[in-house]
């Protein structure tokens, strides 16, 4: 049967992370023929794990507003993205039309656009660049059975934490990006999840990115819209020998959104994966970025930033494992919090016994813009090999009054000086994002957040 092309009214069920809901979901998926017996087993097992595993991270500290054990799922609906809707009427990619969603970058090598979990087509061509494969994950095994079988869940460890398990149990949309050997794509591949206030969905994406030998590409994952969804996903990246991938996430979900992701990459010999993460939206965002350097010459670059305002809370963990050497990693994180915004950053570097000659750098700086804001920084280095270079440093500070006075003394109003210094603080991380258009987009988004923050100050 032609899988995944059914159009028609989607079946919506109230979402709850429990067995009856999963069984209903499985029944809906079965109608599309898109769930194998093995899938069903894995989903049931994952749900059991979700219930059994503890909340991630250390015991919630005093003052943390969000306790992962107390997450509520009221008023959320689950639907399968396997039923698609043609994009109708005013395009949702047009910023002038309702719903008001940011436009995609004009130039891209392909992409997928979701409203909730539902794939909209055909506004964005499935592959503007014919050398690149960009498919809904559920459609990928038919044309690429061997590749998908070899890579799917190969490195995404859905047993790793309770939210990966939850994402696996209720997976309802996803993307497969394949850049074959030697193919170099300049324009970004865009994967967009939009949510509108009209419907609060529970969205469980699974993204699988495979780069062949010497392939180069940029993937941009975006979360936009003014809805308050619960998004919980997994991303797995296979970078083949000498491959280079920029994987960008721009998270600008609605103010009440909760966005949980675990993104994992593995680098083959001389491959390079660059994670670029901007957490700018949502009420609660939790991200894990894991990179495994399991072959000589592998390189992991991580540039992450977040800005929490209001009561928002960001929880970021990066993990880099140097399994063999020489391998290289460089992690830079910049975070700021205003109002009662909170953040936590845990940066782990593990250098295994055989990782001789490896080089790991981790740098984390946090800026507190109000007395009630709070950011914890927890860098951790575990080194089991000699002859390696490892550096980590972390700072948490408030705005430099001398700098504020200096800028003000040049005629620049205090609020403007604050904006200038705060934007400048993020700049070393922003400059690591690929492409000036994207960098400007991040600057503009930060600028708007600073605006909102100074208005309430």
């Amino acid at each position, binding site marked *: 049967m032609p899988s995944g092309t059914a159009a028609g009214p989607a079946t919506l069920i109230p979402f709850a992370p429990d067995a009856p809901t999963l069984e209903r979901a499985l029944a809906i998926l079965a109608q599309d023929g898109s769930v194998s017996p093995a899938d069903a087993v894995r989903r049931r097992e994952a749900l059991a794990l979700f219930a059994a595993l503890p909340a991630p991270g250390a015991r919630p500290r005093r003052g943390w507003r969000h306790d992962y054990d107390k997450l509520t799922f009221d008023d959320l609906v689950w639907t399968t993205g396997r039923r698609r809707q043609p994009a109708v009427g005013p395009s949702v990619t047009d910023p002038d039309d309702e719903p008001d969603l940011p436009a995609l970058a004009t130039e891209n090598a392909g992409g997928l656009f979701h409203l909730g979990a539902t794939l909209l087509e055909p506004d964005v061509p499935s592959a503007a660049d014919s050398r690149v494969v960009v498919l809904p994950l559920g459609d990928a095994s038919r044309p690429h059975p061997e590749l998908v079988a070899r890579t799917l869940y190969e490195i995404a460890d859905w047993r790793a934490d309770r939210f990966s398990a939850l994402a696996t149990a209720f997976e309802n949309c996803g993307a497969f990006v394949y850049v074959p050997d030697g193919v170099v794509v300049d324009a970004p591949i865009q994967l967009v999840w939009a949510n509108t206030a009209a419907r609060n969905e529970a969205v469980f994406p699974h993204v699988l990115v495979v780069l062949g030998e010497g392939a180069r590409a940029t993937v941009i994952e975006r979360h936009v819209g003014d809805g308050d969804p619960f998004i919980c996903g997994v991303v797995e990246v296979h970078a083949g020998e000498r491959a280079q991938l920029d994987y960008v996430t721009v998270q600008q979900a609605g103010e009440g959104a909760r966005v949980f992701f675990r993104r994992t990459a593995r680098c083959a010999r001389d491959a390079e994966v660059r994670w670029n993460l901007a957490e700018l939206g949502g009420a609660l965002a939790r991200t894990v970025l894991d990179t495994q350097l399991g072959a000589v010459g592998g390189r992991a670059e991580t540039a992450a930033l977040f800005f929490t305002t209001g009561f928002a809370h960001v929880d970021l963990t990066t993990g880099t494992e140097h399994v063999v050497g020489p391998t290289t990693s460089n992690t830079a994180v910049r975070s700021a919090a205003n109002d009662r915004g909170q953040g936590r950053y845990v940066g782990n570097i593990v250098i295994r016994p055989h990782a001789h000659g490896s080089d790991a750098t981790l740098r984390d700086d946090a800026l507190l813009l109000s007395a009630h804001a709070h950011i914890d920084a927890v860098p951790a280095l575990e080194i089991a090999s000699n002859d390696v270079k490892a550096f980590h440093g972390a700072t948490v500070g408030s705005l430099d009054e001398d*700098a504020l*006075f*200096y*800028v003000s003394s040049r*005629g620049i*109003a*205090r609020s403007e000086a604050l904006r*200038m210094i705060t934007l*400048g603080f993020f700049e070393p991380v922003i400059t690591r994002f690929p492409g000036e258009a994207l960098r400007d987009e991040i600057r503009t988004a930060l600028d708007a957040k600073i605006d909102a923050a100074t208005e309430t100050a």
Partner: protein
Amino acid sequence: MSARGLVTRDLRVAVQGNEILKGIDLTVEPGQVHALMGPNGSGKSTLAFTIAGHPGYDVTSGSVTLDGEELLGLAPDKRARAGVFLSFQYPAAIPGVSVANFLRSARQAVRSGDLSPAKFRQLVFEKLDTLDMDPAFLGRYVNDGFSGGEKKRLEMLQMAIIAPKYAILDETDSGLDVDALQAVGHAATSLRESEDGRNMGFLVITHYPRILRYLPADVVHVMIDGSIAKTGGPDLAERIEREGYDVIREEVATARA
């Protein structure tokens, strides 16, 4: 009009309850150069910061006016827009903000929208040339990782771009090698020769007469222990270099006795 000038009257300033400035009367008229000399800790930088509006200094009495406009009570940015420029002794670094952006923002803030982008660019390159600065400077972050000399050149570049009514140079010449001093001197000289800077008044805080070769002082003041102990002509600066502050101190003490 008598109100013209950068004028302090009976200015008293305390920091954490200690009186640092004990009644300062100064009048820097448009086009004039005043040198302010004095031993370390005498209150020269306090005067500079107070005029610029640093929040850490409590003015307990007196006034600071710029061409008749009272500056006390104004935020630092408003004072800058009124026409005051302070060249910092220790300029702060602004990581992530390029010199080019900073210059544009400062010019825009003080003289909103008076130059087209092309004209602004032309102005910046002219001033870079005067200061013997590499255009690559524009792409660097403000004072971030700058040498002492580079910081002072950037202060002078900002002064030249803003072209304020009055500039306070707080030890801009300290720690500079001969080349850097020359560049700083040329920047001030060429600004004074330009249309924009013809009527600029300068208050030059310094320990050395050498900067006064470029900015010949009309009036020299010596500040000791928070008061102006002596005021004289250019020869006073030379005398201080020869004889030191102690002689002045003794003279003042004798005169009071």
